[in-house]
């Protein structure tokens, strides 16, 4: 075998592999890259996202990793106590799907992949503290997913609700909005997905929407990422108005332009709005049912399309509402361009000021009333207009606000509405609460037991972790594989001792990814997700 010196002399090239091996062995033996919890030096935490253990690190992994590794090495020599950890995002669909293809249990393939990829990181010259490695499919890790879930349940931040959800027939699971592309394509497998009603677990993340937006002002992030976040949360300020039907049913409407309510000449409900059924008159029933059924098949993207070639579609319910500012009787329609997910699922249509409402009114012969004098030279008279007017102007025919200038007058309108008891200021969000349930096997079980007498019962802290059985049948049959696992399912109710059944859904792996960087700081803690003292500074 050629010695390193010979090879060098022969080829004129460095024997880099010998050099790599020599120093990797030395660094490992010396544990050169261990990070102590305590240090005299100032701390510096440098986090690179942890990968799915797909089996091999590809060049994209290298690209994402080597620069941060160089940076971590640099910071250490500048005198910082650097934490540069790594772990594996081991649960989830990719591991389960790959396991199904190769007929090897996800647990076995996952740990094999992790071991291989860990070696590959070492061969990169990674300066990682492997003592702090986090593997999310370890019961020692997901124990704390379950613990956090229970704390959220206690505070009402985790709840069960029926929802219309996206269903992927290929993966046999529910998907969150964020995992559906182009309106109706599964992000993971590309199959066409459709909507279904199911009882699911949700996290009330919208409670934190304002804090998250405000927090963006405090961090040094690329501007385009901040913009993406702001748009995703989609906070808008406006007002909530209550329109009553002739029969007295209240309908809440959210609008960012409460100054235009004097121009509301009809109302439009989303096809899924709960009042549709009650309001629809007998004569309109057949048409409405047919329309609602068609609308449910379409994706949100299609429904929101402003493509002019797409015909405006809608149907009259037969019922009327009363405009709260002028007591006028206005018809209630249903149209698919109104989405249930945004605002209240009901809008006041102001055809003079909104293009879609304008097109709709023209298509169905509904009245258009002028409420602003245009400042761009276009005609005031709606008969003479070919499009809605969005701009500023002096208000006309607008009750006590006639003669004032819009949109500066909006805050005063809100005050007036509140004083008159006809509405109030309100904030709305694009962000929805996070659907956390998955009907798959390879994930964190929910620590929940269903008892006939006691209902939904949380598993006591001392009984955690609820372990995922490693002998479950993981081929997709249309149901969660845990549903048929009797040993896992059957359990006594912690409250009354009667017979109970465990929750068979597992958590979306975003649960794992939402706090793992704290676990690196205290990876062997058996009493808590991490010691708060270790996180400070």
């Amino acid at each position, binding site marked *: 075998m050629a010695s390193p010196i010979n090879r060098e002399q022969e080829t004129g090239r460095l024997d880099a592999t010998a050099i790599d091996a*020599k120093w990797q062995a030395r660094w490992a033996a010396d544990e050169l890259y261990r990070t102590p919890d305590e240090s005299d030096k100032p701390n510096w935490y440098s986090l690179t996202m942890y990968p799915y253990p797909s089996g091999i690190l590809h060049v994209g992994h290298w690209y994402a990793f080597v620069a941060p590794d160089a*940076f971590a090495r640099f910071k250490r020599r500048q005198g910082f106590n650097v934490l540069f950890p790594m772990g594996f995002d081991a649960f989830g669909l990719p591991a389960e799907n790959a396991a199904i293809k190769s007929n090897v249990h996800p647990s076995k393939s996952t740990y094999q992949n992790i071991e291989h990829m860990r070696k590959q990181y070492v061969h990169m010259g990674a300066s990682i503290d492997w003592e702090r490695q986090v593997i999310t499919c370890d019961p020692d890790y997901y124990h704390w997913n379950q613990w956090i879930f229970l704390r959220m349940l206690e505070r009402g931040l985790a709840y069960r609700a029926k929802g219309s959800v996206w269903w992927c027939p290929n993966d046999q699971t529910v998907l969150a909005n964020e995992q559906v592309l182009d309106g109706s394509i599964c992000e993971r497998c590309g199959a066409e997905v459709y909507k279904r009603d199911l009882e699911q677990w949700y996290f009330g993340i919208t409670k934190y929407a304002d804090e998250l937006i405000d927090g963006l002002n*405090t961090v040094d992030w690329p501007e385009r990422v901040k913009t993406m976040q702001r748009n995703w949360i989609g906070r808008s300020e406006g007002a909530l108005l209550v329109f009553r039907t002739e029969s007295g049913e209240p309908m809440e409407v959210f609008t960012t332009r409460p100054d235009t309510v004097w121009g509301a000449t009809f109302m439009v409900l989303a096809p899924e709005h709960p009042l549709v059924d009650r309001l629809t008159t007998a004569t309109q029933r057949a048409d409405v049912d047919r329309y609602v059924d068609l609308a449910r098949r379409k994706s949100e993207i299609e429904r929101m399309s402003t493509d002019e070639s797409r015909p405006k579609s809608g149907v009259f319910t037969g019922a009327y509402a009363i405009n709260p500012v002028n007591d006028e009787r206005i018809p209630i329609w249903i149209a698919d361009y109104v989405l249930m997910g945004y605002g209240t699922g009901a809008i006041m249509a102001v055809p003079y000021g909104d293009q879609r409402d304008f097109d709709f009114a023209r298509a169905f012969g509904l009245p258009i009333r002028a409420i602003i004098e245009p400042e761009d030279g276009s005609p005031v008279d709606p008969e003479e207009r070919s499009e809605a007017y969005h701009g500023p102007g002096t208000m006309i025919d607008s009750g006590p606000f006639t003669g004032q200038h819009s949109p500066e007058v909006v805050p005063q309108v809100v005050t007036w509405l509140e004083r008159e008891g006809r509405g109030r200021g309100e904030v709305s969000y694009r962000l929805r609460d996070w659907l956390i349930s998955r009907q798959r096997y390879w994930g964190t079980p929910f620590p929940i037991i269903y008892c006939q007498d006691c209902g939904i019962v949380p598993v006591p802290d001392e009984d955690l972790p609820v372990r995922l059985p490693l002998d479950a049948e993981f081929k997709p049959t249309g149901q969660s594989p845990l549903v048929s696992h009797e040993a896992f399912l059957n359990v006594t109710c912690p409250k009354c001792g009667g017979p109970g059944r465990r929750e068979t859904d597992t958590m979306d792996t975003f649960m794992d990814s939402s706090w793992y960087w*704290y676990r690196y700081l205290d990876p062997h803690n058996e009493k808590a997700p991490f010691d708060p003292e270790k996180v400070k500074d």
Partner: protein
Amino acid sequence: MLRDFGLLEHDEPCARLRNQGMILSEEGVKMSKSRGTQVDPDPIVAEHGADTMRLHLMFLGPWDQGGPWNDRGLNGMERFLRRVYDLVRLTADTPSRDSTTQGADAIVRFTHRTIKRVTTDLTEFQFNTQIAAMIELTNELMRLRDTDLVRTKEWRFAVTTLVSLLAPSAPHVAEEMWEMLGHEYSIHTAEWPSWDEALTIDAMVEIAIQVNGKPRDRISVPNDATEDAVRELAMASERVRAHLDGRSPKKVIYVPGRLINIVG
């Protein structure tokens, strides 16, 4: 949420975020398994070593934008590492002593400039330009490797610093070279070099001398020389005197640090 449970004190965990760009195929489009343009790192590392791969990935474009993979670039980085290694071996084999060899001061300044550039670039996540700076220092040292400069302490300082700066990017070869230079293990725990701002500027600067707008000579002057001093030096040049042919200058145009034009 964890803050509200009493586990954390901060609001936002991530004070600073940086995103990487994407590595593309040699044609400049996304790598594709079906087109066979995916690059598998393992055989490359087996052939070239990890550090060459690391350097190539950091050098092929700004980190937040990415860039196309290219084999020529990979080989270029391997040759760069080889040149540094050869310089280190030369230095290790050559005893150094004090001397005031010409060029010693210049190489010290070049090195301080490099320390500043690499440090600033690494801080700002400009991984490609920090490598460019080290390549420039390497090329300068290569240019001078057959001169007496190699026997000086200043030379040793330059080479040692180069290895030190290279370590985050090429950790294995840098550790090897650090050992060859006789330093204590490990380069990766050694203090990061600092630079002297005053030494980052050149002591001397080259001035072009023109007579009636035509370039006739070049001189090297201290960079804080006054216009009068530069003019005096220019007038002392034989070539300038020849082109003036006995006439006295009517006008002198001086661009500090760049040129002096004698009109006459």
